[in-house]
């Protein structure tokens, strides 16, 4: 069984937001909500400024607070290591939204259930990559199987220093952030 993870190379993100649009289109996400977002953080004193582009989505944590808190088992771990929502079991108590340190869940207002990024599980079953990865023009989003030592994500994480969001909380995320791979000469 694979163990899926995503690597985000921040140096390759050009802020085109194609991932945001592709995600909404692929997953029929309601107009007012999003499964992924791109942060553009400008810091420093003019003219010495730095810009960080950061794509964020569900981290599909190995120790996910949303799964722990869910009273009905709607939020659950799949065998492929992803965290999914069984919408038929969701009562809309919103505890998982409060429990998520990454603020990536939302309520589908039309149907009342909680929803979030699924790593495009329906595409994975067809052997395709998630829509955001497939559409990323800068090659910033890289997706693969951590249990396969030859997969691109495994190679990158072996060879490149990487970090995860809010590591100290102990959620053990499966979305990793790197800066520049392969390294420029």
């Amino acid at each position, binding site marked *: 069984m694979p163990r899926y993870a995503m690597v985000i190379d921040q140096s390759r993100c050009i*802020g085109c*937001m194609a991932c*945001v649009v592709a995600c909404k289109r692929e997953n029929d996400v309601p107009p*007012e*909500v*999003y499964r*992924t*977002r*791109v*942060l*553009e*953080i*400008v*810091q420093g004193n003019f003219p010495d400024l730095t810009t960080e582009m950061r794509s964020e989505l569900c981290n599909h944590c190995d120790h996910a*607070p949303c799964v*722990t*808190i*869910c*009273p*009905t*088992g*709607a939020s659950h771990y799949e065998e492929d290591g992803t965290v999914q929502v069984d919408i038929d*079991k*969701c*009562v*809309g*108590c*919103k*505890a998982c*939204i*409060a*429990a*998520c*340190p990454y*603020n*990536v*869940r*939302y*309520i589908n207002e039309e*149907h*009342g*259930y*909680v929803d979030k990024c699924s790593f495009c599980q329906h595409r994975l079953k067809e052997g395709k990559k998630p829509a955001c990865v497939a559409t990323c023009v800068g090659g910033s989003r890289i997706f693969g199987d951590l249990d396969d030592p030859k997969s691109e994500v495994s190679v990158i994480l072996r060879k490149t220093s990487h*970090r995860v*969001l*809010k590591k*100290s*909380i*102990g959620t053990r995320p499966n979305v990793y*952030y790197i800066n520049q791979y392969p390294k420029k000469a």
Partner: protein
Amino acid sequence: MELSITGTNAITYPVMHVWDWRVAIYLFLGGLSGGLMTMSAINYLRSERKSGTIQSLCCWQIPLMAPILLSIGLFFLWLDLERKLHGHLFYMTFKPLSPMSWGAWIILLIYPVMILYALASLPDEIKVKIKNTFIKNTADAMAPYLSKLAKLNVVFGVLLSIYTGILLSSLVARPLWNSAILPLLFLASGMSTGTAVMIIVAKNKEAKLFFTKLDIWLIIGEILIIALMFYGHYTSNAAHQEAIMPFFNSSHDTFPYFLSIVVIGIVLPLAIILKFLEVRGQDTEKEISRFGLILMNTSALLVLLGGAVIRFALVYAGQLSGYGNYTMM
């Protein structure tokens, strides 16, 4: 720093707001009915210890109020569900690590205990008025077990009150709630508000004075726990320090939280002072004076106000807190 985000959800940006006044009311009424269960049961058990026979020293209405108030609270919680017709899914599984799941199942355990206790405590003059034979027969059948049911209610009342705090304290993502002392605060507050209602409803002077004295200790405990909670957050990491800032910042954005801490800071100590005034000299007088009654009821109402303010302030302020929302890695 300049931050622009493409793809934010209004429910979490710029701060999370998923639970509102409905959840705050549930937490308040849940704590209150837990307090009523425990305190009314203590009232019965005191009479048993004193006279050897179990009888109400003040009021049979209190055990009835507990399930009614809990039901009202649960109604508000149900109103907060996004899929109201799917509520039965809580009972399709048991998740041992989910406080939400515990809550759903604990309610199923608590209701029979509190309802049977309420029926057992009905006095004969009320029972003769009951037309439904099933209820009447159950009340008669339960009456001999009043002592045992009262003891169970002491335990379950504590469980119910403390549970309302456990629910919030288990959320690691919200530093203000993520403190083991929060359940204790909700327990102290629940017991204190339960005692306040006992004082208001009780007719008997001795019971009123007993619960007034008890409430003094509960409020002192509550104030100490509030102080310790803030101190604990202040000495913890940056996220926890930031989490309590709304309570100490009187700017426009956070004024309601600042006001809540001012209200709690005035209301609870004032309630204690009034209670000391009530207790003083009352042992020698036959009946409580009219002025004494006004003092008692005012201080009890202040305690109820303080309990409600604590729930509302913590439910809303907790959602402002987080681990470096949107800017930190």
